[in-house]
């Protein structure tokens, strides 16, 4: 391989058809309320862990759908499962079960 002093950039574009949506499907089958999310961000604003870290349920809910499981996995680590997000969610998303099922799905598919 020759060194030209530069290399190709990884594409920022989400290639929807190339990502792995098994995790989303797994979660959706067990907790369909995830699809009620309208990405308003109320959850992220109230999040106890989000006070100290970058945790955002809104982003997790979204990136999960896009199959960007690496980020989901990393971010979800900080969740304390306290349930504030669930209480403020205007659409009734069962956020805590979503989180649990995501982690379970990550284990299942060894993501």
């Amino acid at each position, binding site marked *: 391989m020759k060194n030209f002093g530069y290399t190709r950039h990884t594409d920022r574009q989400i290639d929807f058809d190339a990502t792995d949506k098994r995790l989303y499907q797994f979660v959706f089958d067990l907790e369909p*309320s995830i699809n009620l999310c309208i990405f308003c961000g109320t959850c992220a604003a*109230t999040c*106890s*862990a989000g*006070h*100290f*870290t970058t945790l955002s349920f809104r982003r997790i809910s979204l990136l999960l759908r896009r199959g960007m499981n690496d980020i989901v*996995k990393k971010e*979800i*680590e*900080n*969740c*304390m*499962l*306290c*349930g*504030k997000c669930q*209480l*403020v*969610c205007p659409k*009734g*998303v*069962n956020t*805590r*079960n979503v989180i*649990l099922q995501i*982690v*379970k799905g*990550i*284990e299942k598919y060894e993501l």
Partner: protein
Amino acid sequence: MNYNHFVIPFAAGALILFAILVARYAYWIVQMPRSDRRKAWTGFFRPAFFRSLWEVFRESLIHKKVFRVNAMLGWMHMSFAFGWFLLIIFGTIETKFHKHKVFNMPYDPIFLRYFEHDEKQFFFSQGFSFVMDFLLLILLAATFLAIFKRIRSRFFGMKRTTRLILGDRIALYSLWSVFPLRFLAESFTSGLHHNGGFLTGTAGIAFSSFLPLQQLELPAWWAYSSALFVFFVFLPFSRYNHIPTELFLIFLRNCGIKTSGRFSGFTEFEIYSCSRCGICIDKCQLAEVRPQQTQAVYFLQQIRRNILQPQTTFNCLQCGRCTEFCPVGIKADTLRSIKRTDYSLEYGFSYKYAEEKIPPPALPVDVGYFAGCMTHLTPSIKIAMENIMKKAGVRYHFIDRDGTVCCGRPLSLSGNERQARLLMRENKYIIRNSGIKTLVTSCPICLRVFRESYDLGIEVLHHSQYLLRLAEEGKISLKPTDAVFAYHDPCDLGRGLKIYEEPRMLIARCGELLHTQQEKNEALCCGNSLADFVTPEPRKQEMRDHTLQELLLNNPDALITACPLCKKSLTYGSNVPVKDIAELVAENQ
């Protein structure tokens, strides 16, 4: 020796039952931890044994707790248990008098009427006939009630009744047929030999007028014996297994054995002691709003049959009402908590970020206030607490003013005990690091885990307890008003930690406290329990509305509670203000 081939089914059934039970109980006892076994052996020589006997009489025969919850149901259970017990006792005595022998064949008392026709021969024989017939009548009445309950459970004041599995059905139908068949068999015999009491004798005469009793007598005894056979053989595989198992449970429990941390042989006794009476279904608020079979009785059944679903395990408010009302005293909420750990996750959470984010107080103080996640969602509570403490001149440290590290109980409720421990470790460090001597929290969820799992070595109080102390010490004075209040007992505070009186005493200092239909240990859950991972939001709201309906029945001016989560939950559905006890105190200070 009395013998006819028809005794074989009964004898065989009784032997099989005995063998199965002995094998099973032996296995469970072996599975118990050594310390528990030691407690059990020594229990025979301690008052525990006599306490157990008394409890067996009270609960297994008389069914006092069932009576308390539902008199009709209690009567039915008592009729069967105590009635059958007496039937066996009197039958045995009768046999002894009859044969003038101390040892008889075990089936002799059961089939006595068939073998012995000469009723005049022994002491008090007519009296025995009367007693035996009377007991049979009671049992027949109980059978009738049982059948009627199956068809019309509402007649018993029960909205729902348990669903049966095959083993249950066979055992149930055989039990239903035992006493009617005994009645027929004895009547037929007495019709031929005129030796029955007021019931079988009369019926025998009546039957003999239109039935060929000569041909029917033997088949009837066969049928009776066979029904007993079926019942005995299926008993260990049906709900009726609870009858023998409960005796052991009562004894073991009285010996101080309990399930904690993980399942043991004792847990098996607990699980198999469930009579599937169905009381827990009616007491479960989830049953009101969802058709799912998730109540304690189903949960235990699924464990017994080894088909436990995660749905069942996690679809529970853990409010503790089932345990509170269980006539057998099975701690289903504890068992469910333990079962949840089967689903715990290997990894996936990490909280290293927590401890460095929360600094200790600048100056050492004695009192630390921990608002908790939920209190941050209901800021009026923390504002009220701060106002009260400032006004009372308390120097305190607001531990989680700038962000809360969750107490870990929500995680623990999800079965992830290991991860919850990580979180607790961070929080414990923060609390210890703050150097306080008394920890006050507004959140019963936090309070419970602080007390039960943190081992902080300092005083941990709910804010209602602390506020009462301030009031009693005269640091705050409360102005009574004309207002009337209803109080909602939070599950974790009430049933969980048995703190019922402090909030009530505070309310009483501020106005009049109304009684509600179900309060204290019987109180309803607000519906928003963090323990439930399955119930969809609309159903939670339905539960909340049921609870509110009951709480607001007597038109209070305000509804008081002592948990930020309950307040948050109840506020959306209430047409009167919902306040935390701290807010009430702050307003009336």
